[in-house]
């Protein structure tokens, strides 16, 4: 039972009209929707707004409808109107009353919208307290994980697939039904533009896009090729063990950084060599828990051990894999050819334009693909 109804039944008093003082907030357009795209409280902060906006913006703009963001301080790259913390609640209330729709997780804004009969797409995330007035058909619930969708956080609100929001907004505002490919997972480092070189051969890289070149000695340990490659261009190096001191000394100016990958029973002494030779380095690992703590004591005199993210890819279970594809900004280079992943490089399925293509999954997903998966954006054309 909603708390107002509960109150009414206890006291015999029927709740009346709410009261909130409003102040004018001038805009140079009058047809707009409001997206509540930032909250300082992580429980209410949705992380996939960019995907929602990419889908709805072209359609809304054809209808002359603008997007207004309610934010704390973070502006997105979209050229929209941003109402930040400097606006008072009374001004935001004014904007909500004039909007075509409010979409977000804020219960207060939802209440204001309800009191003013403004359409909503409410992202419900607080189930402890039934204190909104929004009708259920205007709600997208977040209390259940979506099948085949990876929530990259531990917070309920990010259970909601961005396409659900986009579809609901378009249906509510325009009464139009749209079909989109569905997001399965967006890796945390999807936006990183890396060139990962497996040093099984050497060649000159045409790096016009100024991507970060990373030599993966942990995938193929060849000191000779590393040395030659470093003679061509500056690179970062990932290694899980020590390599020849002479390479460090002779190619010092070409080594941008060394990422020392800590595994079980790692030997920290290589870091002494790096420090002695003044080589910039970071320490990375996929270990966690007590395994990681055991290693920490060995590395306490060096630097913080940074934890890498490995995805389980459970979201792919039971999906029609033929309809699943992924995009990536990371390019794997092996034997002089470009690949979308290490698996693609193993089976020699190369692609000349990795960043503008989409890729099928490997038939068997191994640990190496899972370790890479945080660089990928997985989608499916299946309607789920």
């Amino acid at each position, binding site marked *: *039972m*909603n*708390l*107002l109804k*509960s*109150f009414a039944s*206890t*006291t015999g*008093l*029927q*709740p*009346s*009209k*709410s*009261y*909130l*003082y409003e102040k004018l907030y001038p805009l140079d357009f009058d047809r707009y929707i409001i997206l509540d795209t930032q909250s300082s409280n992580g429980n209410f902060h949705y992380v996939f707004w960019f995907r929602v906006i990419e889908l709805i913006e072209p359609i809304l703009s054809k209808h002359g409808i603008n997007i207004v963001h309610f934010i704390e301080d973070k502006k997105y790259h979209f050229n929209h109107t941003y109402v930040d913390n400097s606006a*008072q*609640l*009374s001004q935001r209330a004014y904007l909500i009353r004039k909007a075509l729709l409010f979409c977000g997780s804020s*219960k*207060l804004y939802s*209440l*204001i919208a309800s009191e003013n009969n403004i359409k909503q797409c409410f992202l419900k995330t607080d189930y*402890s*307290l*039934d*204190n*909104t007035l929004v009708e259920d058909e205007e709600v997208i619930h977040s209390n259940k994980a979506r099948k085949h969708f990876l929530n990259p956080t531990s917070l309920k609100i990010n259970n909601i697939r961005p396409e659900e929001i986009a579809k609901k907004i378009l249906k509510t505002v325009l009464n139009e039904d749209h079909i989109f490919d569905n997001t399965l997972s967006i890796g945390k480092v999807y936006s990183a533009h890396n060139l990962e070189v497996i040093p099984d051969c050497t060649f000159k890289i045409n790096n016009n896009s100024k991507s970060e070149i990373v030599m993966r000695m942990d995938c193929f340990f060849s000191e000779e090729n590393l040395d030659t490659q470093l003679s061509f261009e500056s690179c970062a190096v990932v290694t899980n063990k020590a390599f020849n001191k002479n390479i460090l000394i002779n190619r010092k100016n070409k080594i941008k950084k060394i990422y020392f990958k800590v595994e079980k029973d790692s030997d920290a002494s290589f870091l*002494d060599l790096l*420090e002695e030779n*003044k*080589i*910039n380095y970071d320490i990375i690992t996929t270990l966690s828990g007590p395994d990681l*703590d*055991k290693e*920490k*004591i060995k*590395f*306490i*005199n060096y*630097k*913080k*051990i940074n934890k890498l993210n490995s995805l389980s890819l459970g979201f792919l279970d039971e999906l029609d894999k033929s309809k699943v594809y992924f995009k990536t900004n990371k390019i794997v280079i092996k034997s002089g050819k470009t690949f979308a992943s290490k698996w693609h490089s193993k089976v020699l399925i190369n692609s000349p334009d990795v960043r503008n293509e989409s890729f099928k999954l490997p038939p068997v997903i191994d640990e190496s693909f899972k370790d890479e998966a945080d660089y990928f954006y997985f989608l499916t054309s299946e309607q789920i």
Partner: protein
Amino acid sequence: MVKKKKILFHSDFALSKTGFGRNTKAILSYLYNTGKYELVCLAGGIAKNHSETERTPWKTYGVIPNSGKEAADCNSSQDRGRLYSYGAFELDNVINIEKPDIYIGVQDFWGVDYSINKSWFNKINSVIWTTLDSLPLLSTAVSEAPKIKNFWVWSDFAEKEMHRIGHKHVKTVHGAVEVSDFKILSSEQKRSLRSKNNIENETYVIGFVFRNQLRKSVPNLLQGFKILKDSNPNLKTKLLLHTNWQEGWNIQKICGESGVDIKDVLTTYVCKACRGYEVKNFSGNEVTCSSCKTENSCTTTGTTFGISEKQLNEVYNMMDVYCHPFTSGGQEIPIQEAKLTGLITLVTNYSCGEDMCQPEAHSLPLAWNEYREFGTEFIKASTNPQSIADQLKKVLAMPLEEKAKIGKLARKWTIDNFATNVICDKIQKFIDSCDYGNYENTEKDYVEKNPYAQIPYVEDPALWLKCLYSLILKTDVTDADGGLLHWIEKLKTGTSRQSIESYFREVATKDNDKHKEFKIEELFSGSNPEDRIFVSIDSNLENIFLSTKIISSIKEKYPDKKIFVGSTESCQAVFSGNTMIESAIIKSKEFEDPEFLKNNFFESYCLDSFCINNNHSLLIK
């Protein structure tokens, strides 16, 4: 399985380059490797949630606030900031969260003395492990000693004096030194290091590793060095001052005044870009790295950014002799480090220097003259420059074999007395003898302050301030109390006694208000209970917004009654401009009493637990 004892180690952050920090790292690393204990560190000098705290395999809490009211308070004065930096305001919080079985506070006495009167201090196994460096001993340490069951000091010097004045339970536990980091390098390695740093092999290098503080006797050392130079004009010699040139003594200026050529003084630069180091003449506070060529990346070493232990070992190994003149000190770890590298050490024979000058330690004692420190009246040592020069000459004249022999004996003595395993054996024995902590009845009752107390006229500023604490705030403070020092400083800089007294009275009033019974007459004067309706809404913004619907309905039912709302500060944004509300107030605990509400309002609506569980309530007379 036996439950592991939880130890809260309260000292400098393990990765800071201070003596306390290095002790923390040595002790906690050792204890961690035993696998026997659950370790938590309350780390002084580092911000809360700082990413560096994740580097330790034990849980580390930072202490310096990042933002908000706490940060503003921290920045309000130097003394306040210092207390925050010690962790004075985070200690109770961590104790509440962690409930350790053993608390070990390791700091200068004024950096941990606030813990002694905490209600939990003697409920669990608490240790104060502190440095006491001067005679007469810090009066607060002496007066508090009976309250501290486990009172450890860093030097025999302090223990002897505590025993002499009757506190026989005080015992020495030296700070731990990680002996494996410091070793005697081969002659070839030493030559190579000197060559890398453009130091000629025949140059007689006199070293001093120190934090650039008042108590390190830099002027005396420079004078001693000048005497040595003047009496040996042909001697190629350099003074290596491994310190930070931006804090403390203005070394350049004193060199000029002492007649020491600045070219004869070396220092260590460390590069922020490549983390390499170089020993060379001082040429500015930020210089270009000769190795990686990064501009202005090299600074002299400090406690926040310095060289690694391995590099420091190399710096010691470039020296021929180590000279440590100081006014007083808790342990002076560089002396032990120098001994571990086989150097003959010259040490002022006072304070912890007395420990270093016992025969087994194989130091050369430096003579000193007594002076009294202004303000504290502590005995301090002014090291005799002639003695410095004499002992330097003695080492210079010593045959190499004898130097090596003494160096090895001194190294052994250091390992036997200061090595981490030696110190940790003592600590482990203590921990293993302790029971688990007991946290029953640790809450204290509120003591009412007296904002109207009569303050007698007292000439002495410190005593007068102590009267304010005692008579108005009903609390006693020690001489080293951060708050007391803050106000002494304010008096010195011209703040009037009247304004300080007013401040104390204001604090007392506010504190009492927080705790005292609510006086209804002050809030509702001019109206009678029959005309008043109370709505309590201590909730979130949404519920506060929803309450306006209820307030509207109440107003419709009783248009002539005045509605008082009890809420929180956050309600302002919602209630502002609402003409149906007579007054919105921040609630006190009396509003939770049904009798109080019955006696003062026609009707009361409690919407605090405004939720689907239907446990909101209505009181109607």
